[in-house]
């Protein structure tokens, strides 16, 4: 029987929900299982209700599931909220000595977490050991995982002892409730979040500069690159605000290093001014918008895909840009590298749209292949000809003018946020203005050639096509599996390149299926609108979720059936 176990660790902020959940995911990954884990937390430092879901499979997994097999309740609220989610055969671990009023549900199993921990601080680690004992996890492997996480010393020893105490308590007392899993160790996979994958993509792409202002859910990107700064030779500037961040990034891009910034929607609002500056000065820059529900502060620690139409149109005037949206953690690595290549090859801003769900969810991924990483820096002036003849914005057939880097040759690199002539000096001449606008827009012709075939899944001819973009790729794919198992004719198309728009690929799908539904985490169907403007076609319906929670396979499958799939 295939393994598909859903763990949920819940408690209040400060109880170690995140670390216990991550260690559980790490332990299962090290044992060779595939893992997908998401985090649900509130915008506060202490208290509230947080949970970490880790879904374990012996095959690929790309989405969360609502029903829980093993619930780890670190407080009473977790029992109240999540006991009803227990699947058939599911069990819940809690501390009956600290939660006296848990009720008499037979699926509740008390483990004296605090007593075994000796102190409240490590109760979460005791719970981790207890939860893993329920699936007969190898305790020696757990020691290795804990040593790796807590490093050496007393903290590691204390946590190893705490986990062991929880583990042994369950091994002794709950023989009938345990479920032995076969060991499937098949070689090491990475366990990382979408933000981690973006960091690795940026490092592989040769990003040397980042400036940003902390904002959930993008903050871990700046923290990670700041931590790696000395080792990797990457400078991360914690700027005074997002306006400074994007302008610093543009300055670094102008000076010739690969540069990026990362924020969320309302930080991107502040960066919009800089977006156009990059556009008119033809400066390569990578901007990450890790979306969260808006408008304004919205739901700061939750997920949404509400910025698509915004980033497509942000800023005034006409200028080229590219918009990418990785469809899962693995894809985020390659998409980030592509973003840096496109930014330099076409000398324009490239926006990567992720969201809270992708940014903070963990997934197991095969180690990234570095051999396949291709660095394309585009046309670069390396001192050919007389330096005084160099013109930064020379009008060319492709619209791309060779870039010189200030200080590296005698050529002067002149550019202006005013309209400028080929030499970069400001001008109001009508013919020059027309030529420069056209030159910049011509870059889209080349960029369109770079667009690849979007991800599709299922038979080419199906009655129903589900169309999504970005982080929902895994959930939609599993929804297709669910619907097909029920005998329905369904396939899917998932876009990770949104601008330039893959018109031909989308038109093909729309021309075949009887029913076409967009699946989006927003209230209005922003992709549906884009499809309409770019292909002239309407979709049959929209399956939308905008309560801040991630789209799940079951949610999508149910909604599709309601639509008549």
């Amino acid at each position, binding site marked *: 029987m295939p393994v598909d176990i859903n763990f949920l660790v819940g408690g209040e902020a400060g109880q170690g929900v995140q670390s216990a959940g991550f260690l559980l995911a790490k332990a299962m990954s090290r044992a060779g299982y595939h893992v997908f884990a998401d985090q649900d937390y509130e915008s506060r430092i202490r208290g509230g209700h947080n949970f970490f879901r880790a879904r374990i499979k012996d095959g690929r997994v790309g989405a969360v599931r609502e029903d829980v097999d093993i619930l780890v309740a670190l407080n009473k609220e977790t029992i109240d909220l999540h006991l009803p989610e227990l699947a058939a055969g599911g069990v819940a671990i809690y501390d009956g000595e600290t939660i006296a009023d848990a009720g008499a549900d037979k699926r509740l199993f008390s483990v004296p977490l605090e007593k075994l921990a000796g102190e409240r601080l490590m109760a979460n680690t005791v719970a981790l050991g207890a939860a893993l004992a329920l699936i007969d996890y190898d305790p020696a492997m757990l020691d290795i995982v804990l040593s790796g996480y807590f490093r050496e010393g007393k903290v590691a020893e204390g946590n190893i002892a705490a986990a062991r105490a929880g583990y042994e308590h369950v091994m002794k007392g709950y023989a009938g409730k345990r479920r032995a899993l076969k060991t499937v160790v098949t070689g*090491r996979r*990475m366990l990382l979040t979408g933000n981690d994958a973006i960091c*690795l993509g940026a*490092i*592989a*792409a*040769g990003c*040397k*500069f980042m*400036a940003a202002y902390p904002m959930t859910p993008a903050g871990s990107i700046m923290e990670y690159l700041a931590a*790696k*700064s*000395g080792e*990797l*030779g*990457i*400078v991360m*500037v914690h*700027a*005074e*605000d997002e*306006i*400074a*961040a*994007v*302008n*610093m990034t*543009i*300055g*670094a*891009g*102008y*000076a*010739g*290093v*690969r*540069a990026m910034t990362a924020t969320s929607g309302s930080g991107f609002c502040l960066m919009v*001014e*800089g977006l156009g*500056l990059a556009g008119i*000065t033809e400066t390569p820059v990578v901007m990450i918008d890790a979306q969260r529900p808006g408008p304004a502060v919205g739901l700061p620690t939750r997920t949404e895909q509400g910025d698509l139409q915004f980033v497509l149109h942000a800023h005034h005037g006409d200028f080229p840009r590219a918009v990418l949206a990785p469809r899962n953690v693995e894809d985020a690595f390659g998409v980030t590298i592509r973003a840096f290549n496109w930014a330099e090859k076409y000398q324009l801003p490239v926006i990567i749209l992720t969201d809270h769900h992708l940014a903070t969810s963990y997934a197991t991924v095969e*180690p*990234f292949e*570095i051999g396949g990483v291709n660095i394309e820096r585009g046309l670069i002036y390396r001192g050919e000809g007389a*330096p005084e003849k160099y013109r930064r914005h020379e009008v060319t057939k492709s619209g791309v003018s060779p870039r010189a*880097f*200030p*200080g*590296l*040759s*005698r*050529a*002067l*690199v*002149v550019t*202006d*946020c005013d309209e400028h002539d080929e030499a*970069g*000096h*400001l001008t109001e001449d009508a013919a020059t203005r027309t030529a420069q606008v056209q030159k910049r827009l011509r870059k889209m012709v080349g960029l369109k050639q770079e667009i690849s075939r979007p991800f599709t899944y299922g038979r080419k001819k199906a009655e129903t096509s589900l169309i999504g973009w970005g982080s929902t790729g895994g959930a939609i794919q599993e929804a297709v599996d669910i619907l097909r198992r029920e005998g329905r004719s369904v396939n899917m198309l998932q876009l990770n390149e949104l601008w330039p728009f893959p018109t031909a690929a989308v038109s093909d799908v729309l021309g075949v299926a009887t029913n076409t539904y967009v699946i989006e985490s927003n209230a209005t169907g922003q992709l549906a609108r884009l499809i309409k403007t770019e292909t002239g076609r309407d979709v049959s319906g929209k399956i939308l979720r905008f309560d801040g929670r991630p789209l799940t396979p079951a949610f999508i499958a149910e909604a599709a059936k309601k639509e008549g799939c």
Partner: protein
Amino acid sequence: MVELSDYSGLNPTWCPGCGNFGILKALNSALVELNIEPHRLLLVSGIGQAGKLPHYTSGNIFNSLHGRPVPPAIGAKIANRELVVVAISGDGDAYGEGGNHFIHACRRNHDITYLVHDNQVYGLTKGQASPTSDTGFVTKTTPSGAAPPINPVTLAIAAGATFVSRGFAGDAEHLTDLIKKGINHKGFALIDILQPCVSFNQKNTFQWYRQRVYKLPEGGEYDPADKAAALGKAQEWGDKIPIGVIYRQEAPTYEDQIPALAGAPLVTREISPAQVENVITEFL
């Protein structure tokens, strides 16, 4: 040797008699005297009449958005520490739209020089009050008179800048010396320049300034390293206005404190995708 002819550019579109001409002359002289070749120089300007200055001289030029010359100047300096980076603003650009960038650049002590053409009025938009307009200054947007001004010198010292000075566009020789000192200073160097606007500021004219400015004595009589004295001197405004280096201290620059910046400039370093392999192992 660098000559003045190396620093020629387009013909200025400033009003005849504009204070900006004195600043342009002083900057060119300073660059020549420091023997900085134009290709080693990066001028980053904002929007306003001051922001046009780079086009009227020579060098690498990034003419940036209103209020934003400092952030791209910082990004470019970090990308290539060998560039001589001079940011150029007007008073609206620096202290209005760009106020937040200004105080944080002071605080972080980036190794750039900042020339602020301070004419106490908005020129390019035709005569509205600026953040440094004198109290009560009546314009179309301040019919009841402007609110009290920002004192850029006090603000810069308080924000942690390590070189804070004031120059006068009507004394190009003195200003040349200040700009040279600012460029040679390791860290963030502010040169706030009193610059008469002949079109829109009929109060703070060349004559008005000439009657008031005096040069701070050098060589022990005034000690710019004394922060308390400098803050006192910064308050002087009215019948007498001091020009010169008002505050100076030695402190590590932002760039000096970034280990990743030790060695060759970032822009000259090779891109090596294999660099990520060591990092990948952390996630296994």
